[in-house]
């Protein structure tokens, strides 16, 4: 287990990158604590798998260094880095039994057979695979095979980190939940450093202590699930996390007032934004309420999603989503209020801190 530091990592798949657009990873500078559970969250093509492969050593970054516990491992092969990786599709050795699959990484490292037996038995116990130990891996279900992939990492008790590349993609929904909680449990028990790549916010937020949100080859925010929800530092985070995403409204600032077309919205404090910046006010639909003293809107439609309702309303030319309790009704003269405490101001997509 190790602390992983990524120092100014940049990566381009092209041999001669010219400008930023050629880089799959623009610049990533991060520290992952020993024993932490991290999620890399972002849409397809944002560079999260590239970053993961750089950590595992399958890719060598064009620029930058990777340190494990302060030691430079940038040039080391995957095998020497001593990490484990679970892939999107379960990778098992079809012709081997479950037991032999788990023993494989140990036998390759010339571990004594008695020790192999002991460690594999432990891992089988841990992953609840006892009933299948002597079955061929081929015939097992996807979730069992994925457990075997994980087990091949866990069986080596000295791994520096376990990396997951969208490991639940091919798993049935009801098994997803089970596997995820088992993973969480294993993390609590053994405190491996775990990095989990996904584009599913639920997976990321439930698995990780800290979520790294990536967008177009950049890390846009690293934070706890709560931070990502309350204080998204980039409009992309606001939009990507939460369902529906954050409302973004173009505004003009004047002291502690934001002017939204003809309407004035009170802010908790003043902020300093650069001249000519594109300024937007962001607020989560959960913090928009119907209030007779608020801004007049027209209701477009109301979606009932079970536990709550989402009202799609229009304020002049702007679409706004409002989350309502299940029992609540949209008033006859709909007016909305934006909770000042939940407002964030964005200049050119990046969040600006309060105060001047």
């Amino acid at each position: 287990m190790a602390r992983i530091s990524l120092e100014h990592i940049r990566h381009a798949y092209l041999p001669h990158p010219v400008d930023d657009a050629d880089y799959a990873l623009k610049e990533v500078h991060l520290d992952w604590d020993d024993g932490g559970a991290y999620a890399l969250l972002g849409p397809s093509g944002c560079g999260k798998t590239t970053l993961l492969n750089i950590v595992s050593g399958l890719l060598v970054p064009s620029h930058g260094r990777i340190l494990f516990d302060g030691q430079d491992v940038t040039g080391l092969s995957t095998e020497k880095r001593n990490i484990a990786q679970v892939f999107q599709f379960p990778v098992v050795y079809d012709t081997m039994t479950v037991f032999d699959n788990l023993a494989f990484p140990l036998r390759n490292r010339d571990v004594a057979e008695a020790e192999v037996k002991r460690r594999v038995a432990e891992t089988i116990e841990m992953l609840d695979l006892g009933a299948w130990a002597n079955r061929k891996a081929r015939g097992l279900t996807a979730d069992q095979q994925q457990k075997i992939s994980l087990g091949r990492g866990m069986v080596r008790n000295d791994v520096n980190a376990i990396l997951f590349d969208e490991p639940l993609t091919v798993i049935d929904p009801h098994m997803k939940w089970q596997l995820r909680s088992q993973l969480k449990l294993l993390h609590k028990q053994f405190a491996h450093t775990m990095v989990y790549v996904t584009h599913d916010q639920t997976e990321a937020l439930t698995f990780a202590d800290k979520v790294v949100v990536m967008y177009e080859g950049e890390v846009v925010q690293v934070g706890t699930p709560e931070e990502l929800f309350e204080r998204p530092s980039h409009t992309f985070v606001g939009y990507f996390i939460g369902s529906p995403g954050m409302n973004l409204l173009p505004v003009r600032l004047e002291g502690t007032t934001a002017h939204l077309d003809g309407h004035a919205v009170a802010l908790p404090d003043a902020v300093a934004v650069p001249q000519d910046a594109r300024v937007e006010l962001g607020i989560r639909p959960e913090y928009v309420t119907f209030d007779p003293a608020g801004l007049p809107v027209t209701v477009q439609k109301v979606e009932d999603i079970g536990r709550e309702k989402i009202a799609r309303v229009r304020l002049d030319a702007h679409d706004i989503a409002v989350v309502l309790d299940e029992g609540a009704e949209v008033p006859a003269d709909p007016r909305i209020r934006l909770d000042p405490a939940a407002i964030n101001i964005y200049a050119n997509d990046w969040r600006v801190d309060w105060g001047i």
Partner: protein
Amino acid sequence: MGKTWNNRAWFMVLPVLIIVALNAIVPLMTVVNYSVQDTFGDNVFFFEGARWFREVMSSERFLSSLGRQFTFTAIILAIEIPLGVAVALAMPRRGFWASVCLVLMALPLLIPWNVVGAMWNIFALPDIGLLGYTINHMGIDYNFTNQPISAWVTVVLMDVWHWTSLVVLLAYAGLQSIDDAYYQAAHIDGASRWSVFRYIQLPKMKHVLTIAFLLRFMDSFMIFTEPFVLTGGGPGNTTTFLSIDLVKAALGEFNLGSAAAMSIIYFLMTLLVCWLFYTYTMKGEQK
């Protein structure tokens, strides 16, 4: 489930039945017919029962061509399958050179059999052929027209040249279907090159190799044109394989009865070996 029975649907199948009957069943039955009868001409036939079969099965000539046939097939399978896999493993997995290799590999397969035979005949001639001349020039006495060993070597070499590509292409297709994640996982698990082959590549190639094996078995077991053009079955009878022998019996000597019996035995053997091999390799696949 309420299945609809509509007997008129049979009429839809009728054209296919007629075509299959005319081009497969009727000729096959003719052979069966010949195999149990004898004739002295004038289209007069006598029923002979299993006499031809008994005669063929106990004839020295049939057994020795059968022996040559199995030897030949065993030799070319033992060379072509491992060689094909080795070549496929050595080919680049993507990019420009992968395409170049594929085209080069496909070339021998596009050449008609009799041309292959003629090509090798000229190529291997000891006096004017490039190969034959070179070998003799190196001090090795080589002449496929009158030395059994030379003839065998040439026939085997020709078949390997002609057909290894097929195994290569099939094995290559099998290798291409392996996701990169398998190699990456094996790398992480610290697997050796041999382990990667043994536990990832070979199992994933199993199906295509089964097909390659069956195709090469059937084709080589029925080989006719190439050795016929190259050696004509000689010197003596040393490269007279089953099909060459069969043609000699049927068309050369007009022994219709024994040739027909031979055809049927030949056909059943091919079928049996393929069936046994297929059932054996696919056993436990469903589990």
